[in-house]
C-alpha cells in the first residue's frame, strides 16, 4: 500500500464516471476494443469493465457488484431516515420540542458532508468493498444504540452518527465506475443512485409497518419503536457481510492488482483542488444540487410527520404517502438523466441546461403547491409531481457535472454531493426547526427558495457550447480542447499529463448538438481517468 498516494479528497475516482458523452446509449460502438481472452458473463472492454448491464443477473463480478453497491447504499438511506416516520411516537417518548426534531433532521444529513469526502480516500486506499463494508458494519452498532436513547441530545447524536452512512453514495458510484464501461456508466450510475435514494421512501413504509407489527406482538409504543430500529441494524450487518463475502473490488478480483499498477499517473491534490474551487460552475452546481437533492433529503425527514399532523392520518397511512415521495426515485432520477441525454442529442449542452432548469423549477413550484394544498388528495398529487421534479433534477444535474471539469471530475462530483447535503441541512434548519413557520408555510417558502436558487443555471456558460440564453462563442479558439486543456499548465502539457483531457474533449464534442458532425476517435484501452 505504500506506493499509493491518495491525496485527501481528490480520490472521488469516477464518482459519476461520465467521461464519455453518450451516457445513456447502451449500444456499444465498435470503437471500444473488446477483450476476448477473458471469461466473463458480460461482454467487457480491455479493462474488463462490462459494456452491458443485465439488471436481473447476479453474475460475478460486474452485476453482483452492481447489486451489492446499490443495496448497501439503499440500506444506509433506510436507517438514516428510519426515525422520520416514527417521529410522532419518538417526540412523545423523549419529550422533544420542534427545535429538537428539526435539529435532529439537520444532523442526520450534515454528517455525510464530511464522510462523503473521506470515503473517496478510503475507496482508493482499501477499495470500495471494504469502504462499503466498513460503513455498514460500523453504523450497525449506532443503529442498535437507539435502545439506550432517552433524551433529545441522545436522539440528535444518534441521528448524526447514522447520517455518516450516506457516504456509501461515493463507494456505490466508485464501485460501479470500476465495473462498467464509461459508455453506459451514466445509466448504471443513475439507476444505482436512484435505487439507493429509494431507501428514503421505503423506510417511510417499512418503519411504521414494523412498529405496528411489534405493537401487535405486545410491546408498548415507547419500546416498540426502539425494537423496530433493530431491523435496519440487522440489514446493515447482513449487507456488510454480503459485501465482504460476495463482493469483489475489481473485475479481475484483487485490490492488490490495483496496487501494482504503476502506469497510472496520480494527480496532485492541490492542483485538483484548485481547479475544482476556482471553476465558478462548481459552486453554482453546489447551490443547485442543494435545492434538488437537498430538498429531497429535507422532505424525507418532514413529510410523514406533516401528513400525520395536518390531515390527522394514522401513522402507517402517513408513512405510505410519505413513502411514495422517496419511491419515485426508482424511475424519476434515471428519467432526469435520460431527459438530459435526450435533449443533448439535438441541442447539446444548452438542451441539458434547459432540462435541468425546467425540471428543478417545476419541482419548486409543486413544492409551493404542496404547502398550500388544504385537502389530502391535492396534497398527495402536489407531492408526487414535486418528487418527480426534484428527483429528475438530481439526475439531470449529474448529466452536466461530468463536463464541468475533466481534471477535477471526482472532487467536483463529491463537492456537489456534499452541496446536496448542505442544502438539505440548511432548508431543514431555516424552515422546519423553529416555531416561526408552520410546516405548511415552511414547505411553501422552501419551494420559493428552490425556484429562486435554480435561476443561477442560466449563468452556467461553456464557451464551446453556450448557455441557456447565449449560443456558443463564434470564435474558433474556444473549442472543447481549449476548455479542458486550460486546466493544465505548460510544464504538465510537456510531460503529456493532459492527454486524458484531450481524449475527453474530443468525445465531448457531441455536446454541441445535432448540427455538429462528430467523428469519435476510437477509445484507447487505458483512458480510464484517475484522480487518485
Amino acid at each position, binding site marked *: 500500500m505504500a506506493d499509493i498516494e491518495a491525496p485527501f479528497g481528490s480520490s472521488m475516482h469516477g464518482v459519476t464516471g461520465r467521461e464519455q458523452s453518450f451516457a445513456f446509449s447502451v449500444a456499444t460502438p465498435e470503437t471500444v476494443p473488446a477483450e476476448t481472452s477473458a471469461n466473463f458473463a458480460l461482454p467487457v472492454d480491455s479493462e474488463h469493465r462490462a459494456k452491458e448491464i443485465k439488471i436481473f443477473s447476479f453474475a460475478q463480478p460486474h452485476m453482483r457488484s452492481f447489486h451489492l453497491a446499490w443495496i448497501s447504499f439503499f440500506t444506509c438511506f433506510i436507517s438514516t431516515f428510519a426515525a422520520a416516520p416514527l417521529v*410522532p411516537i419518538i*417526540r*412523545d*417518548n423523549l*419529550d422533544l*420540542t*420542534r*427545535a429538537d426534531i428539526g435539529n435532529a433532521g439537520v444532523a442526520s444529513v450534515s454528517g455525510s458532508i464530511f464522510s462523503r469526502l473521506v470515503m473517496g480516500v478510503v475507496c482508493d486506499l482499501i477499495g470500495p468493498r*471494504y469502504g462499503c*463494508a*466498513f460503513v455498514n*458494519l*460500523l453504523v*450497525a*452498532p449506532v443503529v*442498535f*444504540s437507539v*435502545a*439506550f436513547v*432517552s433524551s433529545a441530545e441522545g436522539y440528535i447524536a444518534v441521528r448524526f452518527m447514522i447520517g455518516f452512512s450516506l457516504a456509501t453514495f461515493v463507494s456505490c458510484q466508485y464501485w460501479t465506475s470500476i465495473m462498467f464501461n464509461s459508455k453506459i456508466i451514466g445509466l448504471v450510475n443513475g439507476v444505482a443512485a436512484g435505487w439507493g435514494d429509494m431507501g428514503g421512501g421505503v423506510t417511510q413504509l417499512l418503519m411504521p409497518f414494523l412498529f405496528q407489527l411489534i405493537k401487535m406482538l405486545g410491546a*408498548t*409504543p*415507547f*419500546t416498540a*419503536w*426502539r*425494537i423496530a430500529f*433493530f431491523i435496519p*441494524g*440487522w440489514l*446493515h*450487518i447482513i449487507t*456488510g*457481510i454480503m459485501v*465482504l*463475502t460476495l463482493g469483489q473490488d475489481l473485475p479481475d478480483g484483487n485490490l*492488490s492488482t490495483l496496487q501494482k499498477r504503476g502506469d497510472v499517473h496520480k494527480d496532485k491534490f492541490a492542483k485538483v483542488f484548485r481547479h475544482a474551487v476556482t471553476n465558478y460552475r462548481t459552486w453554482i452546481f453546489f447551490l443547485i444540487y442543494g435545492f434538488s437533492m437537498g430538498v429531497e433529503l429535507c422532505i424525507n425527514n418532514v413529510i410523514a410527520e406533516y401528513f400525520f*399532523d395536518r390531515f390527522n392520518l394514522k401513522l402507517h397511512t402517513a408513512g405510505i404517502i410519505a413513502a411514495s415521495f422517496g419511491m419515485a426515485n426508482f424511475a424519476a432520477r434515471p428519467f432526469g438523466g435520460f431527459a438530459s441525454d435526450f435533449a443533448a442529442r439535438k441541442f447539446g449542452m444548452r438542451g441539458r441546461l434547459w432540462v435541468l432548469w425546467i425540471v428543478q423549477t417545476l419541482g419548486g413550484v409543486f413544492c409551493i403547491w404542496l404547502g398550500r394544498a*388544504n*385537502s389530502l388528495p391535492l396534497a398527495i398529487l402536489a407531492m408526487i409531481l414535486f418528487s418527480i421534479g426534484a428527483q429528475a433534477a438530481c439526475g439531470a444535474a449529474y448529466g452536466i457535472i461530468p463536463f464541468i471539469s475533466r481534471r477535477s471530475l471526482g472532487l467536483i462530483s463529491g463537492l456537489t454531493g456534499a452541496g446536496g447535503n448542505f442544502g438539505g441541512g440548511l432548508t431543514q434548519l431555516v424552515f422546519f426547526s423553529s*416555531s416561526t413557520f*408552520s*410546516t405548511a408555510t415552511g414547505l411553501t417558502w422552501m419551494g420559493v427558495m428552490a425556484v429562486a436558487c435554480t435561476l443561477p443555471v442560466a449563468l452556467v456558460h461553456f464557451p464551446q457550447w453556450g448557455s441557456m440564453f447565449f449560443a456558443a462563442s463564434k470564435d474558433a479558439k474556444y473549442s472543447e480542447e481549449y476548455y479542458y486543456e486550460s486546466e493544465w499548465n505548460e510544464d504538465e502539457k510537456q510531460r503529456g499529463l493532459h492527454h486524458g483531457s484531450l481524449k475527453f474533449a474530443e468525445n465531448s464534442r457531441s455536446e454541441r448538438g445535432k448540427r455538429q458532425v462528430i467523428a469519435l476517435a476510437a477509445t484507447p484501452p487505458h483512458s480510464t481517468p484517475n484522480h487518485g
Partner: protein
Amino acid sequence: MARAALLVSSILLSCLVATSYGATFSSLMRTLVVTASPAAGQVVKSGEDKITVSWSYNNTFARGTDSTYKTIKVKLCYAPISQVDRAWRKTVDDLSKDKTCQFNIVTKPYNPSNNNTFTWTVERDTPTATYFVRAYAYNSAEEEVGFGQTTDSHKTTNLFEVHAISGRHTSLDIASICFSAFSVVSLFGFFFIEKRKAKASQQK
C-alpha cells in the same frame, strides 16, 4: 371569463367554508363540574398510578340546558406549558382541529347525578408532560355541546404531572450490545483474515 372566475372562486370558497364547519370551544358552556384525584403539582407515574375522575352536572345552570346531552367523554389534556414549541399539541378553537386533549380516559352515557366516577390507570403511552382533566358532553350527533375541566379558564391552576416510562428495557440494552459487538467483530475479523491470506500468498 369573469363568470368562470366567479364560479371557480365560489367553488373554492364553499370548499373552505365546508372544511371550517365544526363546533368551537368558545361556544361551549362550562356546565359540568369535573374533579380528578391528583393534587396540584402531584407527579403520577404512567403504567402504575391511578387517577380517579368524577363529573356531574352543575345545577346552577338553567334546567333543560343539558337536555341534548347524550354521552360524556373524559379526556386527559395538555397544560399550556407542555404545548410550548410543540405544534402537534396546539389549542385551536375549532374543536375538529383542536389537539389539546389527545387521551381518552373514559366514555360514559350522560347521567346528571353526582355519583359519576371512574378510576383509570395511566396508560403507558402517555408522555411526560403537565396535564389537566376535561370532560366533554356530546349530543346524539356526536357534537360537543358542553364541557367541564379541573382547571380554571386560563389553564393555570390545579395541574398535575405525568411521568412516563422510558421505553427502555435491560433485555433490549443487552441485545443491542450483543449485535453491535457481532458487527464490529465480523468486520475486523474478515479484515485481518484477508490480510493474513494475502500475506501468506505473497510469501509463497
